[in-house]
């Protein structure tokens, strides 16, 4: 399954300062669907290069990170249970405080 991942608000610093990642990831053995929960652990292993604690906390993202699936807050699509589809766009963005 082809997905586009985007990192922003400083989270790109955890993956070699690359903001956009075109990835190919398939559901795990025995599962038909790829959920956000699956994707997060895949991202943590395959995309995040340093300080994983700045990205994850427990099995979800750390506080202060907004997750958007196709430009919509993942709270509206079922958070970790969101089922991903071919060509979906997933954005991880850290909230900014500067001004």
């Amino acid at each position: 399954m082809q997905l586009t991942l985007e990192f922003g608000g400083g989270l790109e610093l955890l993956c070699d300062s690359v903001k956009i990642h075109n990835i190919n990831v398939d559901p795990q053995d025995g599962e038909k669907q790829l959920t956000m929960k699956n994707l997060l652990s895949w991202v943590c292993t395959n995309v995040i290069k340093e300080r994983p604690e700045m990205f994850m906390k427990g099995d979800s993202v750390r506080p202060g990170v907004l997750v958007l699936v196709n430009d919509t807050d993942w709270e509206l699509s079922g958070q970790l249970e969101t089922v991903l589809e071919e060509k979906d766009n997933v954005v991880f963005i850290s909230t900014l405080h500067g001004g």
Partner: protein
Amino acid sequence: MESNGVEASRIRQEIDSLNANKRNIEQQISALEAQLHQLEVNSNAVCTSSFSNGDLGSSNGLSPDMIYRYSRHLLLPSFGVQGQANLLKSSVLVIGAGGLGSPALLYLAACGVGRIGIVDHDVVELNNLQRQIIHTEAYIGKSKVESAAAACRSINSSTQIVEHKEAFRTSNALEIVSKYDVVVDATDNAPSRYMINDCCVVLGKPLISGAALGLEGQLTVYNYNGGPCYRCLFPTPPPTNACQRCADSGVLGVVPGVIGCLQALEAIKVASLVGEPLSGRMLLLDALSGRIRNVKLRGRSLQCEACGDHAVLTRQTFSDFDYAKFTQTPLSTGPLTLNLLTPDDRISSTEYSKKVAEGEAHVLVDVRPAHHYKIVSLPNSRNIPLSTLEGRLSEISAALEEEAKRRTLDGGSSASLFVICRRGNDSQRAVQLLHTLGFTSAKDIIGGLESWSHNVDPKFPTY
């Protein structure tokens, strides 16, 4: 030759005489214009009283000066007289007169908001001017609120500007915010953002929230018309090391400029009751790629501790809440000062300068990131960024050996190892790391290069 000179002199005299006539005519025109203006004002007043239901801009409460000043707003069919009248009756509080607040205030003053409040406790510094465009060099060292208020007044003397020259705290927040219709959060730290949100929830004020860092910006409207608040989105504060500051990470001046302008736009929409404010949505600006995305956010959370159905937030709980503790970040924007080492493992910048003057054999490692080192560095230092330190220990060993050899020290004594950074925090982290890796004599220079500049060499640049 002589006749030429006479001719030139005659022409000059004629020019002078014509100029005198011209000045005389201009004065007569000005006087007549003033007379005409006065007649028009009087006749308008007559119109107002005799045609109170007329459609000549007479019943809308806008004076001739206002009609002229705001004519481009009045000409907008979707904004018009009603939008402007609403704006003139409204009040907006801008918290923070920095990178976001500067452009927001300039537009809010220009557009005809009735009353504008400005909160800030800071003074203008030279390194603010790259982005805080409301301030000028003449105000360096003076209050940001005074500077911003003067700029707003010089744009629009008919807008009332209220100066709040104080830090925004739980002790004064309710009193200040209660006097305004709309709040613009133009602050630069996490505890202030939670505090301002909660204060707006308690008082039922819409909150225009903007943030910018590096080359990215974010904008949304909280607590508006049943939409979510800041805590609905971020119930738990982020870890402290996730909160980067402009003073550490940098920011391209125009980025907060763009977001601040958009904050003014949202404030104008909310205050004038025109358009569709950015509630339940967030605008994300990526300046580097030139992309702006508008994303859909969750609605108000029923479980929200500030605005949820079972929230216990009141004026009292707000006043008692410790926002610095909650976010583990001090409310003041001053830099962090760590104290990780014992005094024996540290040395002041003046002591270090004595050792340099005395010619003590030593190696100075500067652990700042490479792009900081490029800005300015001490001539005898070598740059090994903290993030790469562990992998470059052999370089330090080699440098120490070489220094000992160069100074022809006998086998028994070795060169000292000093570590420096910008402000003396990373240098302590580096010394801790070096101690565990066998470099037990490593010492950190207290206060870093800033202390060097303040206490040893005032010509050494700070940034």
